[in-house]
């Protein structure tokens, strides 16, 4: 301390200035620290020109920007500007949304919600959202009944308007089917398994007998499970909200079907959306995959030129849905009315049809199916298949299945743990089932 005091006596003007600067820095850093804790301004603002900026929170690529819908809306409403906040993965987007909801800040004016999360939002957070059923210009009849009901809370409030859906079909390789002695015309292929997923497995068994070397009938048992389980009127939850997944026919029968496919060696033993899965498309390692419309673009990209002229799409055994989203409007947004208007416009049949044309997001508005953009749509990469017809027929037959808060985790636990253990790690079906249900019990246990 003494040396320090001695040095202090010798303080020159320059050193003093330095010290002042350092202290200033301390103050600035301290202020920054406080500012860092303040609201993160994810919300909206009105800029000086009197224009209102609306923010839209989405995950992945929703395609509104790409399809030019924001530009179009801004042209129709010169006083509105639209800003999109996109998070790539829903696994990151959804927890952040929950955080913002409970903090009451950082929310966008419009927030997208994935179908696997919508029931949780409707059950636990309905009071934080605008009731879209009561909005002027929203007509319930525009939407498919099951889609509309998915966003309905117990009170009858509708927390979000449906955007796209994922009615499933089966994408298949004509060349491989021909070599294995299966029909290749999409109507005949559809007939091959019409009405029952077990017929799809039977087709696989037929394929297996004269399968081209190095190929399997389908990509994964998880894909089969997922396709089958979504086609029942009761899946994981009973109508009264109790958890019945261990006993429900949907889960039991789909599980057995997946096990049968694994046992017979019909799958490529892949995990969907893994790198290896992508590479398998390029290498033509499997002959079919259960595919909603949003997957067609993915397949085209991954299979590339190698798969050109080889792919086609047929109807799935039973109508079932995979994926799709909703647009919600948080109640405490600064520009609630403008946001409601924008959400209504974006989900209207005409806009959904435009989005389908540009981005292949399949409309949840049944009114859009009559529009030529959708009804007459064909996909050139898939042999000019009439995808509008195939998928809208599937969409209209999809059952209204009660959803519950843990649907997503139940599904991924069955596919990524239960089925994966049996399919890729050689465990017995009983071990796989036990591992999956143990994990799910742990999650739902309070």
């Amino acid at each position, binding site marked *: *301390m003494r040396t*320090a*005091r001695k*040095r*202090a*006596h010798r*303080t020159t*003007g320059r050193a*003093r200035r330095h*010290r*002042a600067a*350092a*202290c*200033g*820095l*301390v*103050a600035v*850093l*301290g202020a920054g*620290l406080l500012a860092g*804790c303040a609201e993160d301004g994810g919300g909206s603002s009105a800029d000086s020109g009197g224009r209102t900026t609306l923010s839209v929170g989405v995950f992945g690529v929703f395609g509104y920007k790409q399809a030019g819908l924001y530009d179009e809306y801004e042209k129709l409403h010169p006083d509105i500007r639209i800003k999109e906040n996109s998070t790539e993965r829903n*696994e990151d987007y959804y*927890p952040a949304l*929950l*955080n913002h909801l*409970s903090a009451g800040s950082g929310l966008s004016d419009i927030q997208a919600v994935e179908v696997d999360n919508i029931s*949780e939002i409707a059950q*636990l*957070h309905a009071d934080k959202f605008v009731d879209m059923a009561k909005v002027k210009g929203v007509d319930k009849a525009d939407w498919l009944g099951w889609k509309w009901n998915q966003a309905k809370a117990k009170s009858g409030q509708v927390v979000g308007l449906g955007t796209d859906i994922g009615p499933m079909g089966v994408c298949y390789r004509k060349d491989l089917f021909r070599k294995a002695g299966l029909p290749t015309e999409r109507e005949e292929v559809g007939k091959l398994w019409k009405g029952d997923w077990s017929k799809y497995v039977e087709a696989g068994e037929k394929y297996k007998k004269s399968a081209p070397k190095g190929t399997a009938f389908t990509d994964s048992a998880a894909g089969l499970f997922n396709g089958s389980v979504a086609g029942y009127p009761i899946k994981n939850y009973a109508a009264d909200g109790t958890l019945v997944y261990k006993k429900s026919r949907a889960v039991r029968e789909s599980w057995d079907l997946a096990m049968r496919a694994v046992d017979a060696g019909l799958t490529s033993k892949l995990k969907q*959306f*893994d*790198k*290896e899965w992508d*590479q*398998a498309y390029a*290498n033509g*390692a499997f002959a079919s995959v259960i595919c909603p419309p949003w997957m067609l673009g993915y397949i085209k990209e991954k299979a590339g030129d190698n798969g050109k002229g080889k792919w086609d799409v047929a109807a799935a055994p039973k109508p079932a849905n995979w994926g799709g989203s909703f647009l919600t409007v948080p109640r405490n947004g600064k520009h609630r009315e403008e946001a409601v208007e924008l959400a209504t416009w974006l989900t209207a049949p005409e806009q959904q049809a435009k989005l389908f044309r540009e981005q292949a997001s399949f409309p949840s508005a049944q009114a859009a199916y009559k529009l030529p953009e959708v009804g007459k749509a064909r996909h050139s990469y898939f042999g000019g298949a009439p995808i509008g017809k195939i998928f809208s027929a599937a969409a209209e037959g999809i059952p209204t299945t009660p959803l519950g808060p843990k649907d997503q*985790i139940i599904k991924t636990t069955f596919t*990524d*743990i239960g089925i*994966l*253990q049996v399919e*890729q*790690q050689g*465990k017995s079906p009983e071990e796989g089932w036990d*591992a999956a249900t*143990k*994990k799910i019990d*742990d*999650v739902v246990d*309070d």
Partner: protein
Amino acid sequence: MTSSTTDAATARRAPSSAPAPGAHPERAGRRARRRHRWDAKWSPYAFIAPFFLFFAAFGLFPLLYTGWASLHKVSLHDPGHMEWVGLENFSRLLEDDFFWNALRNTFTIGVLSTVPQLVMALGLAHLLHYRLRGSTFFRVALLTPYATSVAAATLVFAMLFGRDYGMINWGLELVGFDHVDWENGTWTSQLAVSAIVIWRWTGYNALIYLAAMQAVPDDLYESAALDGASRRQQFWHVTVPALRPTILFTVVVSTIGATQLFGEPLLFGGSQTGGGSHQYQTLGLYLYEQGWFNFQLGRASAIAWAMFLILIVIGLVNWLISRRLHTRR
């Protein structure tokens, strides 16, 4: 905060309070002395304050708050609502197979990655310690993996270790071995994850060892050489003993890193489960799963505190060992 702002204010006022014409020189002098005394006493605290402020806000507060949350049932749906459950989250952990599995994995991956990493780092540092042509190049090259992002490195490694189209399996088949399903085996997946860690951190540790080696006095080597010690003997009997504190330091740092291992196993399989049987799920990954996928923040906090306690134990062991090293000397 108060001390630093007032201090800043005094400092800013300082030039103007220099003896002005007409003021009592004696009183001004006394005041200046008092100010200097005050300044010398408090300004060091002001200088280190930013760190402690940041530490308090982003280190200490979360730590304590996590501890508080670990005694409650908290859901991500409503983090503001906490329900007191006492030590239930901890007693639950004791019976939680997933926790023990994660702890075991963290330990085995830790050993699999830390031991070869440090041994190789020591060897590399020894080689680099010799006069080499282009030594700067080699030193920079050693540090490049460290500068690579976890995400980029892990994605590349995940492709190398791919089952059907991975380069490693391709090489194995080329020399006549069967291909290995790296991700689905317990040991193979842990080896693969460890390989990423080893690749990233070996060079970094080698440079730390190298710096320590350069501080070993040359006359020790000279006298060892005079006594007829070979290079290998010099390494074991001069270099390694001189490096003991450094080795201990790297062991501790690597162990802390291994306990918190998260990015590599997450991105290796692209999922929080750490493989179909959780075969390479580490504690960090399990915490993430509980908090952000199962939405159980209370349980996640308990795991975080368990990890913290494990690190404290490791710190204590380190302290005991280093004390013994000192007394032996």
